[in-house]
Structures are given as structure tokens and as C-alpha cells.
């Protein structure tokens, strides 16, 4: 057991799987000698060689496309896109090829690839380094969309993503990379890719979030507890396919729900969860579902990013609204 932060957990998972499965290759910009701009792949090239840890030319679309071809031919590529702001050129390959390959060949071919990308705001990064576009991928049939919120879940979910026989998009919140450490046993144990994680049990209110926003969400749950409000906290680390059942079960108990995400509100993943609650949980709801999200604006540059990202105060305000609804 070692105390590691999230980026170290990613590195551990990559190393573990490369060690145990020679079909795993890591590719992307600066992932080799440099070990990745966030050091997620540090040491891998020295250990596994430049053929399995490839520094690619600077072309995000081709990185994704290359991974599709590798995966179709039996490799398990783990491609890194340096920031989610640069992920858009990959959409053609991810949506048109990776996500469809199994279906369009009736299972003759498949695409067991992972596309990793650091995501989200909060580290005072330059323009185009703070986006949260998970909804683009969660909307696409044939993909899995994963966003871990802790080192242990990053380790177990990344292993599961690499082993999964279908394409997985894996967003790592840059804000969490070095925020805290956790005991992670490097034993190769994967976590399930299709269930929510219940982080805290409660009876009065359900808080639903994923990725970095669980920091503020858990802090809000703490503040609510001080006021005698028992909040259940659910981590939707696997956004697609969505485990709505766990959320419905929680709301059946609490009757009130606040969904928190950093991505913009309109057509965000929170909208899907809220719609699911309206469709299947209406009779258990005691108050309208609240959403606390990034605004429907361009992610601001660092001077304003803390005003953009949902704060503990905004979550508490939404919680009060849900709790006070008669």
C-alpha cells in the first residue's frame, strides 16, 4: 500500500497493465521521454521501451485514429490528449470510427482503446486548458465515459478502462492530480465501469456529482452535517453508461436531489440525470431537482475561473432550496 496522488495513481495503473499485458501501448504528445506534461506517463518509456510508449507527432486527430487502427488489430492503446481543449479533432475518429466499429461490423472487429485527457478548470491554466466536454462523449452511442474523483478510483477505473473490450474516454481532473493522496494498493484490482460510487450515506438529501466537483460537493455535505442535515453523496464516475438505478434508489430515500457538475448546464450530464429522476422517480421527489453547474458561458481565463466553477456556497444554496421546498 502506498500513499499516492491521482496522477501517480494513473501512472501506477498504466505501469501495472503494461507489465501484465504486452498488447497495451501508450501514445500521445510528450508521453515518452518527458513523461507527459502532467507526468502521468513518467518512467514508462524507460521501463517499457519507445515502441510501446510512443511520442507521437503533434496531431490529435491522428493520435485517436492511430489508436483505432491499433485497437482493431489487437493492441490495447491508451492514447493521451494533452488537454480536453485539444480533444475536438479526435471526435471524427472517436465518434465515426471507435464508437461504431463493433456495431458496423456486427462484432467482427472491436476497438478496445482508451482516450485519456486532463480535464477541467482550477489550475490557472492558459486558454483552452480548462474545458469539461464529457457530455460530447456521454452522448455518443458505443462509448464509455469515465471521470474518477480520487486516486483509488482513478487506479481501479483506469485498469477497468484498459481491460474493457470497447472504447473508453477517461477524463482526469487536473485540479485533482496533486490535490491529495490516498492509500492505493497496486494490486491490479479494477473497479466496475457501470455503477455509481456511494461516497457517503445520508437520509435528507442526495448530492450527485463526479470528477473534481466532488471536492466542493463533499465540503457542502460536511457543512450540511454541521447543521444537522444528512446528505448522501454519489460519485457518478462512470457517466456512460449511466447507473441511474443507484441515484433513483437514493432519491427514493431522501426525496431531494442536487446535481453538481463543472461542465456547462445546457445538455450537460446533469440534465440527463434530472430527466431520469423526472421519468422514473417523480413520486419520490419532495422538491424540484436542483442543478449547480458551470454557467453556459465560455470557460473564463484564470482570473474568473473560480467564479465559474460551482462553489460550496452555490451548492449549499441549492441544497437549502431543495430542503426548504414544501
Amino acid at each position, binding site marked *: 500500500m502506498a500513499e499516492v496522488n491521482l496522477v501517480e495513481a494513473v501512472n501506477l495503473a498504466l505501469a501495472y497493465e503494461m507489465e501484465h499485458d504486452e498488447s497495451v*501501448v501508450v501514445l500521445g504528445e510528450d508521453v515518452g521521454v518527458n513523461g507527459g506534461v502532467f507526468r502521468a506517463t513518467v518512467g514508462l518509456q524507460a521501463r517499457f521501451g519507445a*515502441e*510501446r510508449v*510512443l511520442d*507521437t*507527432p503533434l*496531431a490529435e*486527430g*491522428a493520435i*485517436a*485514429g*492511430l*489508436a*483505432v*487502427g*491499433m*485497437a*482493431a*488489430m*489487437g*493492441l490495447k*492503446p491508451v492514447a493521451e490528449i494533452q488537454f480536453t481543449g485539444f480533444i475536438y*479533432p479526435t471526435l*471524427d*475518429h472517436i465518434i*465515426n*470510427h471507435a464508437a461504431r466499429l*463493433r*456495431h*458496423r*461490423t*456486427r*462484432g*467482427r*472487429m*472491436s476497438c478496445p482503446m482508451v482516450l485519456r485527457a486532463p480535464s477541467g478548470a482550477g489550475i490557472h491554466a492558459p486558454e483552452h486548458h480548462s474545458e469539461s466536454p464529457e457530455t460530447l462523449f456521454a452522448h455518443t*452511442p*458505443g462509448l464509455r465515459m469515465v471521470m474518477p474523483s480520487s486516486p483509488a478510483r482513478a487506479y481501479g477505473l483506469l485498469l477497468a478502462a484498459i481491460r*474493457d*473490450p*470497447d472504447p473508453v474516454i477517461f477524463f482526469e481532473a487536473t485540479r485533482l492530480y496533486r490535490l491529495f493522496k490516498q492509500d492505493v494498493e497496486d494490486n491490479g484490482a479494477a473497479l466496475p465501469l*457501470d455503477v455509481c460510487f456511494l461516497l457517503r450515506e445520508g437520509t435528507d438529501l442526495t448530492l450527485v456529482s463526479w470528477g473534481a466537483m466532488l471536492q466542493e460537493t463533499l465540503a457542502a455535505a460536511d457543512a450540511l452535517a454541521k447543521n444537522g442535515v444528512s446528505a448522501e453523496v454519489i460519485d457518478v464516475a462512470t457517466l*456512460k*453508461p*449511466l*447507473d*441511474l*438505478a443507484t441515484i433513483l434508489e437514493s432519491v427514493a430515500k431522501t426525496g431531494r436531489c442536487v446535481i453538481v457538475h463543472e461542465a456547462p448546464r445546457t445538455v450537460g450530464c446533469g440534465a440527463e440525470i434530472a430527466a431520469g429522476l423526472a421519468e422514473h422517480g417523480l413520486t419520490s421527489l419532495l422538491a424540484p431537482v436542483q442543478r449547480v453547474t458551470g454557467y453556459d458561458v465560455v470557460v473564463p481565463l484564470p482570473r474568473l475561473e473560480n467564479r465559474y466553477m460551482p462553489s460550496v456556497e452555490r451548492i449549499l444554496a441549492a441544497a437549502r432550496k431543495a430542503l426548504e421546498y414544501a
Partner: protein
Amino acid sequence: MATVASFEIEFVRFLDPRGEPTGALPDFAREPGTLIALYRSMVLTRTFDAKAIAMQRTGKIGTFASALGQEAVGVGVASAMRPEDVLVPSYRDHAAQFYRGMTMTESLLYWGGDERGSDFAGPRHDFANCVPIGTQVCPAAGAAYAFKLRREPRVAVCMFGDGATSRGDFYEGMNMAGVWQLPLVMVINNNQWAISVPRKLQTAAATLAQKAIAAGIEGLQVDGNDVIAVRQVADAAIAKARTGGGSTLIEAITYRLGDHTTADDATRYRDADMVREQWQYEPVARLRNYLARINAWDKEAEEALHRECAEEVNKAVDAYLAVPPPGPDAMFDCLYAALPAALEPQRAEARRFG
């Protein structure tokens, strides 16, 4: 001032438009049986195309992209490949696909709107048709990378049209093939038209082949209506790729004698005279003339071949028409290795409404 780089682009041709050898033929072409097999494949593709267009007109299949006039490109390239190599085609490469073992029934299924057409019997590792233009170059490079990593003596052969060479994916995939010396052969079916946009509006470059120079790989032109030349340059490029010599870009000069697809009307943007003139260069008559010249072909053989091809195509059509449409479960069956629980209610809904 010093010149730091210069280049030349070779053009390869063995038969002139009348089917007369322009010089010594390559070894494989000295055996009439080999040439007759190539000829047969081209005629079969042309017979299939005519039938498929007729089927689209009568509502038996959906939109279809014919290879009329470009048969030598697909047949020439496929005949140079080994079964274990991987074809990464566009949507106009059924000449190559048929040569490699995809059945005409499977092609009709695909164009008839049934995914099972891409679950073909031909080499199971060949990629299915790629519709988003030129995007297949990157996966083709990835496939080639897998072969190189595993030290497998296999080659990825990627085919696309002239329009694809204007896209970033083409440059990006080719660039990677150059950097890593990948066993990737890229073949441009330069049929002069990207739907209505002529070759000269795609690029100011004198040739498409020279785009290879920027990626540090070999690029050359071949007469795409001369199947002997196509086979020869593909043989050389594939052998080079297989033995670690890296990637090649082949620009096959040909002409799209038909519409872009059955949904297109080419008379809107090009003169009938222009197309009529191109018929004198087409590949089927060119090889037939050569075969007749060496007394390897005659009228009887030609008639017999046409009968045989028509029969084969009709059989494929009958087999296609006998395939019942898939049930609604097919939308869900192969989306993931196993259907996620979240999708089960939607599958149930599809079943309920049939």
C-alpha cells in the same frame, strides 16, 4: 544560395491506351493466365456495378458508388496483397474487396442498408468501407504500427480518392507512417473528381504523389488504367513495406466514368464530351486489346466471360434478396461487447414496437 531539397515524381505505365506495351513488361505479366485473372476481376466488377446501379434504380438497394473506369486500381492493388495483409478501403473499393474475398452478396447487403454486409467472409481482418473521407488513413497507420510492433511481416494498404488528399487525416496519417517507417501503402484513386469538384480545385500541387515528399516517404504516379502498371508498383511498394523499407504513396491516375454515386448527376458539372474522350483510356478495353494482341483472348472467350460474370452477379443478387432484414435487436446486439444495463429498457422498447 544552395538547393537543400529537390525531388522528382516517377510515372509508371506498361500498356499505352491502345493496349500496346511501351517497353518490357514485368515478369508476372509474361504469364497470360495471370493477366486473364486480372481481366476477369475487372470485368466482374464492371458487371456488378451495372447491376448494382440498376438495382438502386428499382429500389432494391440504396445509394451506390460505382467503380466504373477505376477497376484497374482496385484489382491491381489487391492482386499484389497477401491474404494476411490488411485492406483499409474507402467506399469505392469493391474491386479490391472482391479480389480479396468479400462476396458480391455482402457488398449488396452493405449498400442495401444492412450492417451484416461489413461482417464479410473475405479477410476477416480487413477494414470495412470508410465513408468519412480520408479518415481511414490514420487507422491504417495504426494497423501498420501494430504489425511493426509485433514483428509481423504484414502490410496495411489504404485506399482513398483524390479529394481525401486535401484532408488533414491524410497528411497526419502519412506523416506518422514516415516518422515510424510503417508498413503502410497508401493508394490514391485519383479519378479526377470529388463529387463535382475537379482535381485542379483540390490542390495547386502538380501531382498528388509529391505530397509524400513532405512526409519523407516515396511517392509516385502510375497509370491507374493500366492494371499491369498498378500491380507492378503495388508489388514493389508492398514488398518494400514488408521488408522494413517503410511507406509509399501511390497516385493512380484514372477517371470516374460514372456519377459519384447513384444520388449524383454528373451532367450538372461536366461535359459529356469530356467523359466520352476518357473512355478511350479505360482499363478493361486496354488489357483486352493487349490480350488479343498476344493471341490470349478472342471473341468467344469474351462472350463466355460475360456470361459467366452475369451469372455470378445474378447469383449474388438472388442471395442478397433472400436475406431477411434484421430484427430491432440488431441495433443493440453489437454496440458493446455486452449490452449495458442502462440500455436494456431501450432494447425492450424497440422490441415492443417491433
